[in-house]
Every structure is written in structure tokens, then in C-alpha cells.
């Protein structure tokens, strides 16, 4: 198990034992800004060395995957989970969108094992964040019995496209792309050298947050817990198929599987709270942070690596 995951577990245990440990809110905010920018910068510098013509079709495939995943989750939630349209659509959007921190843990896993991956992957992270949220909002408003004209698209798209995570990821990508490796050298110490240490500290906080969602998970029962584990497995399997079709390396396949499996807890909650206020946010957050995030960083990521290896072996 990677050392950063141990920090996550410390946070979980501390919270479950009732410790009053708490990271200052401003530090949480600072760490998340740092992580998003650092991931973007690294990806941008690598992107500068890729031919755009080769990356563009991959980017489209990744966005299509992001848009397709909620369409699979939605009917499951409606029919099997018997959830109302709003809750189903909101949950589906969370599970189609991505968690950047889960991605960072997956990258750390590959780096530790010296597995190569497409270095411009952060672009895919940024691109995969928004489509599922838009699809989720459309699903919520697609019923004949609701006020279909009531989508506040201005506020929703503002929240989706100008939310902190997309601005920082795309901003970091742009800076890295414009500057290139050479120009980034003087600031490398902060942005790349400290990355894993900062990720560890952030995961400690995530452990505290995830464990505090346990009550919500209990309240919503077995179906939500099962969905929080099974849906990532379904999404990861589909993502492996897409990655193979895109011609990604084994490392890249594993990262796309992780992105497919991860559930958003920054961009999606913020956008959906405004766009679909009827949905109960405790459900989506409980599943995404209380179940899927811990599952992915502990058991899921090694499993997705296995899946990627099988995918590669199957050709």
C-alpha cells in the first residue's frame, strides 16, 4: 500500500475514534489549489511535446466516456435503487464526473511501480469533469412532470466550467503548455518536489471527511453502499475497453479506468446543488465520499491496474 494511503487511513481512524483532529479550512483550500495546479502544470509541460492531432481524438473519446457513464448509472438507480429522478440524476452525474485526488493516488501507484503512462493525462482529467454534470442536469429535467424550462443554465454552466477545479487544472495545463519543461525548472521544487508530501497531508484531511460521511451511508442503506462499490467496477471495466480502443498504454488504461471509477466531490456537488436543488446532496456525497473514494484509494486502484493488465493481455 502506498504511503499516501496510510495518511488517508490515519484520518479515517482518527475520525471514527472521535478525535477532534481537524485541518484548518484555509489549509484544506490551499492544499487542494496546490494539487490541482501541480497536476495541471505537469500535464501541460508534457502536452507541449505531443502532436495535437494525436491527442484530439483521444480527448473526444474521453469526453464521450464521461457523458456515457451517467446514462448507465441513471437507470440502475431509478429501477434497482427505486430512487426519484432528481437523486438518481445527481448521483449519476457524480459517478460520471471524476475525482482529481483519486487520479493523483493512481499516478503515485504507477510511479512507485515505474509503470509508464501517457504524461498528458491531466488534460483528460479536466475534460472528463464537466460532460457528466451536464448530462446529469439534463436527466434530472427530462421527465414530463417537471418544470423543464426551469434549468438555470447560466448559473449551472458558470459553476461547471468556471468551478475551481476546472479553472485550476486547465490553468495549470495552459501555463505548463506555454512555459514548457525548461521554463518550469526554477519552480520545480515547489510544484513537483513537494507534490507527494502535500498529497499525503491532503489525504489525511480526506480521511477525516470521508469517515464523517459514514452516518449518511448508514442512513441510506445497503443499496447505496453496494452502488458505491459496484458502479466504479462497471465504469472501470467500460473505461478499460475505451482505453484499449484508444490505444493507450497499460498505465494509461489503468488511469482511465480510475477516472471512470472515481466519483466527483468538488465540481459535481457545487454545480448540482444549484442546477438540481431537489436532489438530496447527502445521498450523492455519502456515496461518493463515504464509500467510493475510500474504496478506490485502498482497493480499487490496485484492482484497476490488474484490469488494465488483463486488458493488455487480451489485446
Amino acid at each position, binding site marked *: 500500500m502506498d504511503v499516501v494511503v496510510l495518511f488517508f487511513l490515519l484520518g479515517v481512524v482518527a475520525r471514527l475514534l472521535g478525535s477532534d483532529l*481537524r485541518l484548518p*479550512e484555509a489549509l*484544506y483550500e490551499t492544499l487542494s489549489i496546490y494539487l490541482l495546479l501541480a497536476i495541471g502544470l505537469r500535464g501541460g509541460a508534457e502536452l507541449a511535446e505531443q502532436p495535437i492531432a494525436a491527442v484530439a481524438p483521444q480527448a473526444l473519446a474521453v469526453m464521450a466516456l464521461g457523458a456515457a457513464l451517467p446514462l448507465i448509472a441513471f437507470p440502475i438507480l431509478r429501477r434497482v435503487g427505486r430512487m426519484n429522478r432528481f437523486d438518481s440524476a445527481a448521483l449519476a452525474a457524480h459517478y460520471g464526473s471524476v475525482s482529481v485526488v483519486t487520479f493523483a493516488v493512481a499516478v503515485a501507484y504507477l510511479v512507485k511501480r515505474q509503470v509508464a503512462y501517457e504524461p498528458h493525462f491531466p488534460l483528460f482529467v479536466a475534460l472528463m469533469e464537466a460532460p457528466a454534470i451536464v448530462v446529469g442536469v439534463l436527466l434530472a429535467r427530462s421527465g414530463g412532470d417537471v418544470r423543464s424550462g426551469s434549468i438555470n443554465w447560466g*448559473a449551472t454552466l458558470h459553476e461547471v466550467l468556471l468551478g*475551481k477545479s476546472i479553472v485550476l487544472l486547465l490553468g495549470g495545463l495552459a501555463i505548463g503548455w506555454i512555459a514548457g519543461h525548461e521554463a518550469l525548472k526554477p519552480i520545480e521544487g515547489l510544484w513537483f518536489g513537494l507534490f507527494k508530501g502535500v498529497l499525503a497531508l491532503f489525504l489525511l*484531511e480526506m480521511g*477525516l*471527511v470521508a469517515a*464523517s460521511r459514514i*452516518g*449518511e451511508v448508514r442512513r441510506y442503506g445497503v443499496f447505496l453502499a453496494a452502488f458505491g462499490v459496484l458502479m466504479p467496477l462497471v465504469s472501470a471495466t467500460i473505461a478499460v475497453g475505451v482505453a484499449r480502443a484508444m490505444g493507450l498504454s497499460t498505465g494509461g488504461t489503468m488511469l482511465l479506468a480510475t477516472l471512470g471509477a472515481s466519483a466527483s*466531490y*468538488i465540481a459535481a*456537488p*457545487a454545480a448540482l*446543488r*444549484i442546477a438540481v*436543488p*431537489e436532489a438530496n*446532496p*447527502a445521498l450523492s*456525497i455519502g456515496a461518493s465520499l463515504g464509500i467510493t473514494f475510500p474504496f478506490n484509494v485502498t482497493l480499487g486502484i490496485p484492482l484497476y491496474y490488474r484490469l488494465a493488465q488483463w486488458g493488455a493481455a487480451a489485446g
Partner: protein
Amino acid sequence: MQTHAKKLLVVITEAALEKLLVRDVRTLGAHGYTVCDVRGGGEHGDREAEWEGNRSIRLEVIADEPVCARIAEHILATYCPNFALSMFVADCGVLRPHKF
């Protein structure tokens, strides 16, 4: 000290609503507002502000009674059904009435 009677409207709710509420109170006639970050709990559970999805704000507006009433009615109809929200009105006295 001479004071002028006004109403203080206080709204405690999810931080996700901040931008919308600020826009609404301005449109409905308030001259100003104050927002601060808070944490607490109620019928929607505890909101401990540990991460962005769990933040709460306290929005305060001082205005004449009709303006406060308009804002309160709008909030009751628009946001109360779906958001964690507490709201109350109190009497207050201000020194410079033209500001409110």
C-alpha cells in the same frame, strides 16, 4: 444618540447559495449585505465546513421593513423547500438611515 428603526434580516444557509442570494437581495432593494462563514447543525444534519460541499454562510441585510419582507418571501418560496436554511428578522437601530 438618535437611532432610526430598521429591520435586520439574517439568513443562515448553504454556501452554494451565496452568489444567488447576494444577487437576489440586491435586486430586491437592499443597499448592502454582509456574509460570513459559519458552521452548525439542524434538521439537515451537521454542517461542519470541513470541505467545500459542507460550508455554510450567514448573510445579514439591514433594510426597511418592506424590503426585508420582500427578500424573506422570495427566499421562503425559492430556496427553503430544497436547502438547509434558517432565517429570522430582528429590530435594529441605525445611525445613518440613508445607508440602508
